[in-house]
């Protein structure tokens, strides 16, 4: 069957502003990945079409983009997940600078991720064996550790759109990942980073991030746990 992709294009060497271009591609069935249709465009029709991709099954986080108005991974979105009776609109992740076509500049996103000290801090001498942790405590981290840093959440968040200094849901989720790790000793330092107007308190529980997350992480729930921890710290 034939499917039309309406893709936002922008090449800074050539274009003064983004525009849309339509391509008609051939899809085997409704289970075709959007990524494979983009690759078909690139390999058959127009080699200049530019996007990031790698694993093609939702674990590397390279191909976050906006598909029919929703932030998704092109590799874990199938035709049947979108309305393909009309042209499928494919745009770069919103609110961050475009480098070319669907490739965006993630440097600010990574900077905010690094700001929460995204690594285990434990200065006590380690035991000879592993640090024991109950399965219950370990599983508290699993949801947050699923994050693939694709940027779908942060770039879907209205608070991020209106406040460029807002640290954003991905970084807050990462802060949770370590604050609630029973093996970690730097919770306070991390809480200091997010206990600011541009930190956790900027989250207004709009839930866009939850809807956008391709790994189905309930990010807002994790942020609310962080806020609760911050409030308890105040007391």
């Amino acid at each position: 069957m034939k499917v039309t992709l309406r893709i936002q294009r922008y090449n800074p060497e050539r274009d003064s502003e983004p525009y849309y271009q339509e391509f008609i591609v051939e899809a085997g069935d409704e289970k075709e990945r959007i990524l494979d249709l983009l690759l078909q465009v690139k390999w058959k029709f127009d080699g200049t079409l530019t996007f990031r991709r790698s694993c093609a099954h939702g674990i590397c986080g390279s191909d976050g983009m906006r598909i029919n108005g929703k932030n998704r991974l092109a590799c874990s979105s199938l035709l049947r997940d979108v309305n393909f009776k009309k042209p499928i609109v494919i745009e770069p992740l919103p609110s961050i600078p475009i480098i070319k076509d669907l490739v965006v500049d993630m440097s600010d996103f990574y900077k905010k991720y690094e700001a929460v000290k995204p690594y285990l801090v434990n200065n006590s001498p380690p035991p000879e064996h592993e640090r024991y942790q109950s399965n219950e405590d370990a599983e508290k981290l699993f949801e947050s550790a699923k994050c693939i840093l694709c940027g779908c959440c942060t770039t879907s968040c209205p608070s991020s759109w209106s406040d460029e200094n807002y640290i954003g849901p991905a970084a807050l989720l990462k802060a949770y990942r370590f604050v609630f790790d029973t093996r970690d000793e730097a919770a306070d330092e991390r809480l200091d980073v997010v206990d600011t107007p541009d930190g956790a308190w900027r989250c207004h529980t709009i839930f866009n991030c939850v809807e956008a997350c391709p790994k189905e992480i309930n990010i807002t729930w994790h942020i609310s746990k962080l806020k609760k921890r911050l409030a308890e710290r105040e007391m």
Partner: protein
Amino acid sequence: MIKHQYDVVIVGAGGAGLRAALEIPEGFSCAVLSKVFPTRSHTGAAQGGIGASLGNEEEDSWEWHMFDTVKGSDYLGDQDAIEIMAKDAVRAIIELEHMGMPFSRTPEGKIAQRKFGGHTRPEDPNDPDSKRIAVKRSCYSADRTGHVMLHTLYENCIKQKVHFFSEFFVTDLVMSGKSCAGVVAMDIATNEIHVFHAKAVMLATGGYGRVFRITSNAHVGTGDGFSFVYNNGLPLQDMEFVQFHPTGLWKLGILISEAARGEGGILLNNKGERFMERYAPTVKDLAPRDMVSRAIITEIREGRGFKGSDGTSYVQLDVSHLPKEVLNDKLPEITGFARTYLGVEPTKEPIPVQPTAHYAMGGIPTTVDAEVTRDKKGTKVTGLYAAGEAACVSVHGSNRLGTNSLLDLIVFGRRGGKAIAKFIKDAEFPPLPEDAADRTIARIDTLMNSKGKEKVGALRTELQEKMMEKVGVFRNEKDLTEMTAEIKSLRERYKEVSIDDKGKIFNTDLMEALELGNLIDTAEPIIHGALVRQESRGAHSREDFPNRDDKKWLKHTLIYKTDGKPKIDLKPVSITRFQPKERKY
């Protein structure tokens, strides 16, 4: 052209590259170059676990792990190296845990372990000769072990302020006489050429799965490191050994971890038979990957497979009888893949699977300290190191056991890092040749200006389909001979490739064209290695030579690029504790 000088340059930011970077001491400069942002590396796709004889769930020992690895390798693995890996495994896992890696846990709070293909223990622990049964040796974090390991290593690199050059695509080594003096790279964002002058270079560039049509590997798995070495007159080792993972998701090749069988999943043919009982009576579905892949293809060839709508055939992986908690808590990703990509509900129906190109057992020959060697005597190439899938130590021989790849990354990544740290203390920078970047500049100029009629996408698909057809699970002289001619012709046609994108910003069209060159460079030694090895061993299965031939072929192949037919040399295998025996499970 922009020039840099670093004591150490590491190419690749997957498990091996990141683990090595953590060993470079303060006071020395180290750059890690990666063509993708580090957490996008393919290590993150590993699912089922990492092997170590922690003994957290039942009695285990490093000797048993070593024996299983030697036997799994069909005795081609170097036993000195395997001993190092099996012994170091426990320390390496504990270290990952201390670094913050989140693991699934036992009721006592220890790292949880599960069964995996080819990992066994004697049924009676006091009698080493008793029947071997499956053992819980794979340390895991649900079915996202590689993902959390990659993130943990990257996090520790941030903590240690490692300097990354993300989205830098390395195109060549810089050789200064017989030493390595750095690398040439292209900044993807700008097309600018950078020359990195270094005392030590480590290639941690991963595998080549994209040489084949059906693969579990990421699009980035284009064999770059193999190509650099091969084109600089250095050998590649045991390239004929390509692991086909038995359970790739039908049509797509996406990995469905062996953990599914480790947790109790079984394979079924179109008669509803659990066919692995016939091929491996004791460990059944948990036989090593080469055997299970051959069994699946045999079932299909003998008419007991299922015919797919795409013309290819598959068998079924059934996990529907497993408790829901096991599927949800221990195998959430792979059950999700079946639902997302095939619309199959694994709690109720079996998953269609077929073998998928998964892992390179061969690669850049190294010592046990990741030092690259140039000949059968093991002469070292000063300043050049390799680790991870790109390297061939060889701990996997002719067939790798599941869970040993993540282990290989952290054991030999660390050893390589330590060897580099020692080397750079006294080493001087080798002279940087004036023409270091010339070959890269010429290649890029040719591609940017070419008006040839060949296109990257079509040529790559042709390569991948032919490799799948003629150099797959089963091989024979006729197919391989045909393929040697094919690869020659593909190489010629590659000269006629032209690209659409002539721009200087994020030119992935150019990058894919360069990667296609690497794929062709990598396919050549795979084909020639497979043709010359007239025996069946591990993952290399010759229909015309169905038996293992230890007299002639208990040897590593080394393969060198020449202007004509590649040159083949043989290198001895290290045999210490375990004499070769018939391999039965």
